[in-house]
């Protein structure tokens, strides 16, 4: 009856972007890797995302944005986490994000950006590596 600690991941789509194919594929892949995935759907504000992340006690927040608004929205999520003393929650992102924006995002607390063409196994391995269980 050894109970397992499962990694919990919040997959979120901040802003108005409605393209959720990637987010849904990622959610399934993470589930198939044994994780518990909370997917909150489209049109999430940074406040809604952080509220969910805190209540669900997630280890990781995965942000998906294909509309070019990532530089504006991702740092907001990180800032809100900081405000709630929850910077230990890992924030990663994906979508249509040019390489040249990655340093900016990382400076603002996003741990990694997974650019187009990245395999889901890369994401799974990254999370497994970076989430230490209490």
């Amino acid at each position, binding site marked *: 009856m050894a109970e397992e600690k499962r990694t919990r991941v919040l997959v979120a789509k901040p802003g108005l972007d*409605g*393209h959720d194919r990637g987010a849904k594929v990622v959610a399934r892949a993470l589930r198939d890797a044994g994780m518990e995935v909370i997917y909150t*759907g*489209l049109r999430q504000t940074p406040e809604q995302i952080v509220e969910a992340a805190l209540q669900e006690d997630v280890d990781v927040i995965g942000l998906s944005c294909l509309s070019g608004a990532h*530089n504006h929205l991702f740092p907001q999520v990180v800032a809100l986490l900081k405000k709630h003393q929850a910077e230990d929650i890992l924030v990663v992102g994906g979508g249509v994000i040019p390489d040249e924006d990655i340093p900016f995002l990382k400076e603002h607390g996003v741990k990694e950006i997974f650019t*187009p063409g990245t395999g889901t196994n890369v994401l799974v391995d990254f999370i497994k590596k970076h989430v230490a269980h209490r």
Partner: protein
Amino acid sequence: MDEHLPGKVQQWEEKTKKSLAKNPERKPKFKNASQLTVERVYTPLDVASDYTVNIGLPGEYPFTRGVQPTMYRGRFWTMRQYAGMASAEESNARYRYLLEQGQTGLSVAFDLPTQIGYDSDHILAAGEVGKVGVAIDSLADMELLFKDIPLEKVSTSMTINAPAAVLLAMYIAVAEKQGASMEKLSGTIQNDILKEYVARGTYIFPPAPSMRLITDIFAFCAQHVPEWNTISISGYHIREAGSTAVQEVAFTLSDGIAYVEAAIKVGLNVDDFAPRLSFFFNSHVDFFEEVAKFRAARRLWAKIMKERFAAKNPKSMMLRFHTQTGGSTLTAQQPDNNVVRVTLQALAAVLGGTQSLHTNSRDEALALPTEDSVRIALRTQQIIAYESGVADTVDPLAGSYYLEKMTDDIESAAFALIQKVDALGGAVAAIEKGFMQREIQDAAYDWQMQVESKDRVVVGVNQFCIKEPSPRGLLRVDASVGENQKQKLQQLRSSRDNEAVKQALLHLEACARGAANCMPAILDAVRVYATLGEICDTLRKVFGEYHADNVL
């Protein structure tokens, strides 16, 4: 047909099977992009079709070979590149550039706040203004967008859905100011809300009031803007969301059926609006499957219109469509390869008989296209049209045993899926039950797993990779666009007749609550410079907002 053929084919197969031991094939089984089996060889035995009944001649029912008898011998497909970014002024410059370079129609891309009925100063618009298309807050922006572009002469397609009525009204108002008459305006509004719920996500209102707005547009245009294509029933996005070719056809035509039924329900005669229905498909990786898909869609729709809806006018049975090459097939890796992908996809669309075509630019996996990239995309179409000769005869691939068999297979598989949607109660019900969404998600996941297992090769991504530097010179939309739009809005609100706006919005609200056609009221509101957000908020008050419910 040679009566000995079946025997000969069988002999050949047996002989070939024996040789496989020494000369194996690359895979144990070959499947196309939609997981339909691809045989080793196709022969006359595979073509069940009676030429006259099923394949027929171009311009004649069931239109397998095309909706016009002369197709591109008369006029090439419209080369219509989807464009729009940042401000109306910048987009206007891009449109005039494209028209100078030989583009034959305009296609407007709007930003997300505009597509979802929010002004640029709305809190949810932050960071999104001008990013994926042009920001239009009011008629003032629309006037700038079409400055020096004669609307009576240029046909314009607008990719706008939930607030389509408003943008159409703005277009009409701009034309009025140019002195052009409504009757002469030609173009398209996408106006296909069902696929928004399924695959694209830029919805505002729930299904029922959305359908009402759509049928209002049908009725208004049938009377006042007869050259306008009132809807572009779309499969492109369904395919981009991960569906197979069969699902793309089936779900698109199911949506089409729902729109036709809605229009008939409000009392419109099928032959009055059906000729102005148009479609929008994807052109994807599997070359022959795509050509077959377009032909299958045409034949299937013709049958549906004739048999299910008893259309009498042949124009009602013609599936006219715009095509865009598949954006999701482009890679961020080795972006120049995308030019090759787009070429094949464009060729498939042309061989499939598309009425108009947008070719993606090589840098679009990462950003909106630069001027150079979009020019190459346009040249791709021009080279196919002017140099390759494929446009000089109608439906040149017809008669290929492979193609005709694939056309038959896609048609029957799509028909079966349409019946499934019917059994669930039609497209709207199927969407509410999450059926379409689940089918698409499953297909999307399968595709991804195929790519990750290298079952499906994507050149540059999972094979033939190189170490490459980050791309340079991508288009960037300045954050100042958002600020500028906000300022423009402030100026607009202080310089317009706010009392007139208030009255117009009250009148619109009353209209929306009743059963009258909303278009005249929307036109009135637009003319006095009510903003898009103000108009949509009025409608939100009456119709409510849609919330997506089903998940994975």
